[in-house]
């Protein structure tokens, strides 16, 4: 297995996923093996932060004082350009199918991924 890359779950402003060197499957939840085929030759990579909104839910009632300070906040599932799905925060008006780009924000004392609608400039940049 390649070196472990730090990601937002470790406080680093990055989204990291694993690709299986044997079957090519992509997985987001880090493991020491491929959940599709069991192989251990995984390659860890940083994701581009680009994707498409799969689902959204605007949380208006939070359960802890730390999270309550942020309501309403939008929990989104994003299908990334790399082919895995992830949960993150997003702009409150995101709709399913929106093309989005990630940045990182502070939420309840943690660094979390936050998706916003991809601007024209962003799109141009990803063509280069």
């Amino acid at each position, binding site marked *: 297995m390649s070196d472990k890359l730090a990601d937002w779950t470790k406080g680093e402003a990055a989204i990291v996923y694993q690709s299986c060197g044997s079957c090519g499957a992509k997985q987001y939840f880090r493991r020491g093996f491929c959940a599709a085929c069991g192989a251990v030759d995984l390659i860890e990579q940083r994701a581009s932060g680009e994707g498409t909104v799969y689902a959204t839910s*605007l949380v208006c009632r939070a359960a802890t004082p730390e999270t309550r300070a942020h309501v309403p906040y939008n929990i989104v599932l994003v299908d990334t350009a790399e082919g895995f799905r992830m949960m993150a925060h997003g702009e409150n008006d995101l709709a399913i199918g929106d093309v989005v780009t990630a940045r990182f924000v502070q939420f309840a004392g943690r660094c979390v991924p936050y998706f916003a609608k991809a601007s024209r400039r962003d799109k141009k940049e990803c063509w280069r």
Partner: protein
Amino acid sequence: MSYITGVGLTSFGKHEGSSSLDLMSQAASLALDDAGLKRGEIDGILCGYSTVSPHIMLATVFAEHFGIRPSYAHAVQVGGATGLAMTMLAHTLVEAGVVRHVLVVAGENRLTGQSRDASIQALAQVGHPDYEVPLGPTIPAYYGLVASRYMHEYGVTQADLAEFAVLMRRHALSHPGAQFREPITVADVMASKPVALPLKLLDCCPVSDGGAAFIVSREPTTEARVRIRGCAQAHTHQHVTAAPRLSELGAEIAIAKAKSAACVAISDVRYAAVYDSFTITLAMLLEDLGLAGRGEAAARVRSGHFSADGEMPLNTHGGLLSYGHCGVGGAMAHLVEAHLQMTGRAGKRQVRDASLALLHGDGGVLSSHVSMFLEQAR
């Protein structure tokens, strides 16, 4: 072959001063009386979990407390699917000749035993500890995500979902044990406080105190003859991030296997008992199970199809949405009500024909599914 020989259900709502063990004991006593059995005749115990009083050996804690020395006992944890998963296991144990009478029991003082925040927080932990929980989702948010996608793919609206809350409330009106017995309208649901959009307060089941129990036996012990005809499970994922597409969820897998195990078709079903933690859960499950076409369940609610006097009476006690949700016991109330209907004991809620019932439970975020058919045996 196995029979549900007795059922017991407390009222749901506030049971100030009652512990989880108290509520389990109340329900267990009712079930024993209903089956005409004594404590000493119970040789198996399966119990759910308590988020208020977690214990690594709840079944033996309960057995000692209740005064039973079973030859088989342990707890089962499959979230909202626990009640039916325990029933399936009890059925399997009885059929295999391991035990004669299994007491299936659960109860929790979830409403008065802890704060609502603590309850919401405890349940949110079904999310992934590293990749989901730090984002501050709640159980309604996990289901809100699923709801947004389902509404997007099948053209279901918030007003459609509201119909299920109204139906469950209407059914609860005629059950004295229900937590909520004030009539509500679609407009009330639409105007209720946003929780995790598209889900609003009245789209969500409440937190309740309560207990439920039943006995699964090799032979009938009374006139009641309700037989477990067949059942099956499916588990496709734990976390909503890892859920398959909507067309590949576990309910469809479980019901297909259960139909084949029981040799029945959906057209044979006369009564439905379906898990309804949120309005979206009920809408999706009805459609996944084949009790309504895709995107058509709400129209069937409006036409009276799922009413007590309709073609497919559904959760006539009011379901989790209005009878209440005390954890594992919450979904067990669906089975208790089905049993009362099948034995002609549902009083003013009695439906014309409940000769074959379909029960379905869901745990996690549509993660774990159990489908089961019960029939009136002659």
